[in-house]
């Protein structure tokens, strides 16, 4: 057992070194803006940049809208397929996994050609239309994660019984969805939502090619033109991702506690 444990520590050590060096490097670099001493100047410059505030706000709004649309599409579908159309499950699952197979750049290329100004649905003709298109693109990107999270959440509850019970009490479909199913899969939905947020906030390709003023293209622009600010932005982006993942852990753990308390 002894030699195995040495190998284990070695593997972990290499992993930790590989993952922490870039983080430390970035942090150190972001503090080097003022010559000869460490300072938070790079962060100050970045946070005071009006384009940072605009693009960041834009991406936050986009992420929230994506989450709402994603939940509205995914939760009823996953529920309905489990309840009424189990035969369709492999098909739906296959479709939800397609965004992992088709690169996002290909999907957005299709959008640009399919919804251009001379098409039947000229979404790219107006700023609002392009925003909607971008949001749908983000919803597509998050589909695999959202669907899997919600579907796993539904597996743990007996939806057939819950539905029948609700129906016999006179509930309609909207009531069943919002007051019976959604609260039961809330943790799964929140996990999917935070993951979606982490994906959307820094997304580059779709926003750049659809020419929207999102955070990802702003990052790229700063990276091409500045020295220390990109490192500060990378630290901020890493912190956002970290917060999103932390929140997922938090809601999962919280739900485990409440479930345990109920039993």
């Amino acid at each position: 057992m002894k030699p195995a444990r040495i190998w284990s520590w070695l593997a972990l050590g290499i992993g930790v070194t590989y993952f922490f060096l870039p983080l430390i490097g970035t942090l150190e670099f972001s503090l080097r803006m003022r010559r000869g001493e460490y300072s938070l100047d790079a962060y100050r410059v970045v946070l005071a940049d009006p384009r940072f505030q605009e693009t960041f706000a834009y991406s936050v709004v986009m992420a929230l809208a994506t989450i709402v649309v994603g939940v509205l599409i995914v939760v009823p579908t996953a529920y309905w397929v489990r309840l009424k159309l189990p035969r369709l499950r492999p098909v739906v699952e296959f479709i939800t996994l397609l965004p992992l197979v088709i690169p996002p750049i290909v999907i957005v290329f299709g959008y640009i050609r399919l919804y251009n100004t001379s098409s039947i649905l000229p979404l790219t003709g107006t700023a609002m239309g392009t925003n909607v298109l971008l949001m749908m693109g983000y919803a597509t990107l998050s589909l695999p994660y959202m669907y899997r999270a919600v579907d796993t959440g539904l597996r743990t509850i007996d939806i057939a019984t819950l539905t029948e019970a609700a129906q016999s009490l006179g509930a309609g479909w909207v009531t069943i969805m919002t007051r019976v199913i959604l609260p039961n899969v809330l943790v799964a939905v929140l996990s999917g939502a935070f993951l979606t947020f982490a994906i959307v906030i820094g997304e580059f390709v779709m926003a750049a090619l659809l020419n929207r003023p999102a955070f990802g293209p702003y990052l790229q622009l700063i990276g091409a033109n500045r020295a220390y600010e990109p490192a500060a932005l990378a630290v901020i982006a890493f912190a956002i991702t970290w917060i999103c993942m932390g929140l997922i852990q938090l809601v999962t753990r919280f739900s485990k506690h409440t479930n345990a308390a109920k039993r």
Partner: protein
Amino acid sequence: MQTSASRPHPVVAPTRRRLPLAWLGVAPFAAFAGLFLILPTMFIVLGAFRNAAGEATLENIANLFQPSILAAYWISIRISLASALLGCLIGFAVAAAVTLGGLPGWIRGPLLTFSGVASNFAGVPLAFAFLATLGRLGLVTVLLKDWFGINIYAMGFNLLSFTGLTLTYLFFQIPLMILIVTPALDGLKREWREAAEILGASGFQYWRIVALPILWPTLLGTLALLFANSFGAVATAYALTGSSLSIVPILLFAQIRGDVLQDPHLGYALAFGMIVVTGIANFLYVWLRTRSERWMK
């Protein structure tokens, strides 16, 4: 709705009228997937087989076989394969170390959380992080020069290259592997190892004959997933190299932005080629998985 609820067995209601209603429930999803996933992709695929006049042709596909585009595909495939293989190997080693290697239990939680973060920390910020670390003025580059007198750039290292990009992609490939393979490693039952040991198997034999065949589908599946994951990645490479390193996604990106190939239909063919490559990777996964599952029975 009320009449059907008051009946004792609503299930036996005439299926002819029920069926279309049930299918209506997936209509929003079908509309969404059709409009924003399947139709755009079909449009690209069909465009790859049409010329500017709209006639069916194989010319666009044939045009892909020119040296510069083939070279772009080749380097893309090499980077994706290298980062997927190394990601699988290192991720597996770390996950095995934590689940089976006798490390203290408290390491596991933070490792999985960190993997969740790192696997999603891709795109432009990741490029910044590696520029700040291994760029010409990066922390590691400078420290190696100051402390050990090793100038990695004089030795031929370049972040904007095959090695550099592979090294960068590993930052999200390894954690993804850890996240997927850890539950699979947990699924290995203690009894199997004990049974193998009682029958006189060495540690190596246990892994080769018992554990690896069981894990095979997961490993192959993750390999295919990691491959597709890095093959389609644009943001990191673009932020890292601009358009100096000509990999397929960057070529396509430049084509969409400014029609650098002077032929929009060649762009469709380029995109179609990307779908074919990631499609083959996923097909191989499904095929090998059914094979290994049949063999396992």
